[in-house]
C-alpha cells in the first residue's frame, strides 16, 4: 500500500482548520482478479459531518459499496488493494493505523447496516443474543446487563413487544423487523457514523417508509452522520442533505440535494433523472441513457461516460474532466461542459 504523505488534492471545501468527522481523500482501489486488473475506485473524495446525511448514488459497479467497505475496513484484501488515498476519521488516517486500533473504530465509531438483513444475521442465535454479543465482547457487560441493553435497543428501533421477542430467531421476524434488528445491532456501540448500504432495497414500499423514518429519527436523536448508499433517486430526495453521484469509480457530481434535482450539472445525472418514471407526472416518454456502464477492466479514456453521453466532444474522449465548481460552494461536476449542462445550454 502506498499513501500520499503530503497534502493530497482534497475536495474544494475541505479545509484543514475544521476537520470533518469523516473525510475520504482521493481513494483508489483496485481488484486483482483472474481476468485482470479491475479499477473499481478511481479517486473518490467525500466528507461527512455530524448530524448530516450524505447520499452516495450509483448503479451496480459504480463503486459506491466498495468505498463504504474501505471506510469500514472490511474489504477483502486480496483481491482488493487500496492503491492510495486517505480515510480520515476525526483527523486520524484509518488506513495507516494498526488493525487493533482499527477494530476500536469499527462498530464503535463507524457502524454499517446492509441490504440483506437475513444473510447479515446469524440464523442459529436468537436476535437478542446477537445484539447483546457486541456489548458483552466490547464493553464487558454481564449477560444480564447486556440483555437489558438489548431490550432497550430493540425498543429504540421500535420493535413491538421487544421483551417477548428477544429470544426469537431471525427467521421468525419479517423483513422490516429484521432490518430493525440489524439497525439495533449497529447502534449498540453508539457510533458517530452510520453507513447504510441500500437499507431498504429488499423491502416493500410501505415498510421502506417506516425504516427510512426510523433512520432519520435516530440520526437526529443521536446526532450521527449518515452515509446512505442507494440507487433510488426517490429515497435520496426524501432524506439526504447532500448527494454524491458515482460512475465508474469516480464521483462525477456532488451537490446539495435540492440544486442537483433542479439543475443537474452532469449529463449522467441529467440522464438518470430523466429516465426514471415519475408517479406524479403523467404520460411522459422515458428518456434513456444509451449503452451500458463501462467495464471496469477497460475504462474508456477521457471522461468514462463519453461513449454514452449525448453531448460528447473530442475533448471528452481525450481528457479526463476535472472537478469543475458550479453553483453553490462545494458543488462540482466532473464534466468538461458542467456549466453548460447546469444552465441547460446543451441539448
Amino acid at each position: 500500500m502506498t499513501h500520499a504523505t503530503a497534502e493530497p488534492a482534497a475536495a474544494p471545501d475541505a479545509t484543514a482548520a475544521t476537520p470533518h468527522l469523516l473525510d475520504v481523500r482521493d481513494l483508489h482501489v483496485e481488484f486483482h482478479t483472474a481476468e485482470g486488473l479491475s479499477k473499481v475506485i478511481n479517486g473518490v473524495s467525500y466528507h461527512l459531518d455530524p448530524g448530516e446525511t450524505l447520499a452516495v448514488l450509483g448503479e451496480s459497479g459504480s463503486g459506491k459499496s466498495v468505498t463504504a467497505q474501505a471506510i469500514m475496513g472490511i474489504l477483502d484484501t486480496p483481491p482488493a488493494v487500496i492503491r492510495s488515498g486517505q480515510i480520515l476519521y476525526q483527523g486520524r488516517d484509518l488506513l495507516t493505523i494498526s488493525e487493533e486500533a482499527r477494530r476500536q473504530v469499527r462498530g464503535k465509531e463507524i457502524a454499517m447496516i446492509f441490504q440483506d438483513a437475513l444473510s447479515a444475521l446469524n440464523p442459529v442465535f436468537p436476535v437478542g443474543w446477537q445484539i447483546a454479543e457486541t456489548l458483552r465482547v466490547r464493553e464487558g457487560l454481564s449477560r444480564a446487563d447486556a440483555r437489558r441493553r438489548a431490550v432497550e435497543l430493540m425498543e429504540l428501533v421500535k420493535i413491538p413487544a421487544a421483551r417477548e421477542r428477544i429470544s426469537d430467531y431471525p427467521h421468525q421476524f419479517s423483513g422490516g423487523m429484521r432490518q430493525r434488528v440489524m439497525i439495533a445491532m449497529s447502534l449498540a456501540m453508539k457510533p458517530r457514523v452510520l453507513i447504510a448500504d441500500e437499507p431498504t432495497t429488499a423491502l416493500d414500499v410501505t415498510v421502506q417508509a417506516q425504516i427510512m423514518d426510523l433512520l432519520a429519527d435516530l440520526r437526529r436523536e443521536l446526532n450521527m452522520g449518515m452515509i446512505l448508499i442507494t440507487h433510488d433517486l426517490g429515497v435520496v430526495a426524501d432524506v439526504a442533505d447532500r448527494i454524491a453521484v458515482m460512475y465508474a469509480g469516480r464521483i462525477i457530481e456532488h451537490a446539495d440535494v435540492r440544486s442537483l434535482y433542479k439543475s443537474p450539472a452532469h449529463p449522467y445525472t441529467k440522464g438518470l433523472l430523466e429516465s426514471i418514471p415519475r408517479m406524479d407526472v403523467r404520460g411522459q416518454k422515458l428518456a434513456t441513457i444509451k449503452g451500458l456502464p463501462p467495464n471496469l477492466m477497460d475504462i474508456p479514456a477521457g471522461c468514462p461516460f463519453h461513449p454514452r453521453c449525448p453531448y460528447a466532444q473530442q475533448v471528452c474522449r481525450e481528457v479526463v474532466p476535472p472537478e469543475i465548481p458550479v453553483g453553490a460552494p462545494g458543488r462540482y461536476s466532473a464534466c468538461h461542459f458542467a456549466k453548460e449542462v447546469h444552465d441547460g445550454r446543451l441539448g
Partner: protein
Amino acid sequence: MAASADTRTKVRGETILAVDNLVKHFPISQGILFRKTVGAVRAVDGVSFELRRGETLGVVGESGCGKSTLARLLMRLETPTSGRATLEGRDLFAARGGELRRLRRNMQMVMQDPYTSLNPRMTVGDIIGEPFEIHPEVAPKGQRQARVRELLDLVGLNPEHINRYPHQFSGGQRQRIGIARALALRPEIIVCDEPVSALDVSIQAQVVNLLEQLQDELGLSYIFIAHDLSVVRHIADRIAVMYLGKIVEIGTEDEIYERPTHPYTQALLSAVPVPDPELRGQREIIRLTGDVPSPANPPSGCRFRTRCWKAQEICAQQEPLLVPQAADPHPSACHFAEVDTRVNPG
C-alpha cells in the same frame, strides 16, 4: 384449429382473457410418517379480472400478496384450487394435451431475474429457438435460424450474436433475450413478472420502452406484475392492486393513481418516494403500522383492517366486495371507500 386464432379478426379492446374467482391454496402439512394437512397458505383467494386485447394490465402489491402466484397460475405452472379462466373463449384450466399446448403458445412469460432464467449452457440462438422444438408449426426447421435473427433484431440485439452465451451479455441485454424468447411463438399475451426490477435505473427505461414499442408493433396484451408503482403507472392502462391474495381495487391508470378509494392503495401510493426534494415534508405520507399478516391466517372480514386507520366493527365481520363505489365508479373493496384528499389534493 391452431390457425383459427391467427385468422380471426382481432378487435382492440375486446376481452382476450377472463379470470373468474381464481383460488390457489398451498397446503401446510405436518408430521413425517403420517402427513396431514393442518392449514393452507391462501396465496390467491378469489381473483377475477379481464384482460383486453392490446392493453397492459398492471398488477401491483407487496411481497406475499399473491401476484407472482397469479402469474404462475395463468401460465399453468400451478394448478388452481378452484376458479376459471378463459383465453379467447376456451377454458384455460380444462385444456389438456394438444389444446393446452396451443393455449400456452398464445401466452408467454418474461421472468424477473435475467441471470437465472436463461440456461447458461445454451447459446442465445438455442434459447430463443427452443420454443420451436415444441411448436414446430410456428417455424419449420429450415427457417428457425432466420426467425431467431429476426427476433434478436426486434428486441434491439445484434443478430450476429446468435452463437453467444448468456454470460456474455449484460443484465439488460439478457432481459431482451428473455423477451425475444417470449415473442418467439407470436403470442398475444405476455405475462411480465417484475421484468425490470433486477435492472439498473438507466437500463430499466430501455427495457420499458422496448416493451411499449413491441406492444404497439405487435398488438400484444401485457399482464405487468411489479412492485414499483412508478413503472406501473408509466406502462399500464389499467391496474389491479392486490393485498393478501385478493384484488382490493381495480381501475384505469387515472382512477387508481388520481382517485384511489381504497385505503391500502392510498397508503401504497403515498409511501412511494417522489424524486423531488422540493416536495420533502410537503407530501403527506400515510404511515402504515405493522406488517402484512400471514396469508396462512388472514384476518376475518376485510384483510386490510389490521393495518387500516379507518377500520370499524363491520370490517372485522363483513368482507367488503370489490364493487363500484359512490366516491368513484371504479371497483374498490372497502366499506368506507372515499377519495383521500391527503393523497390527491383537489
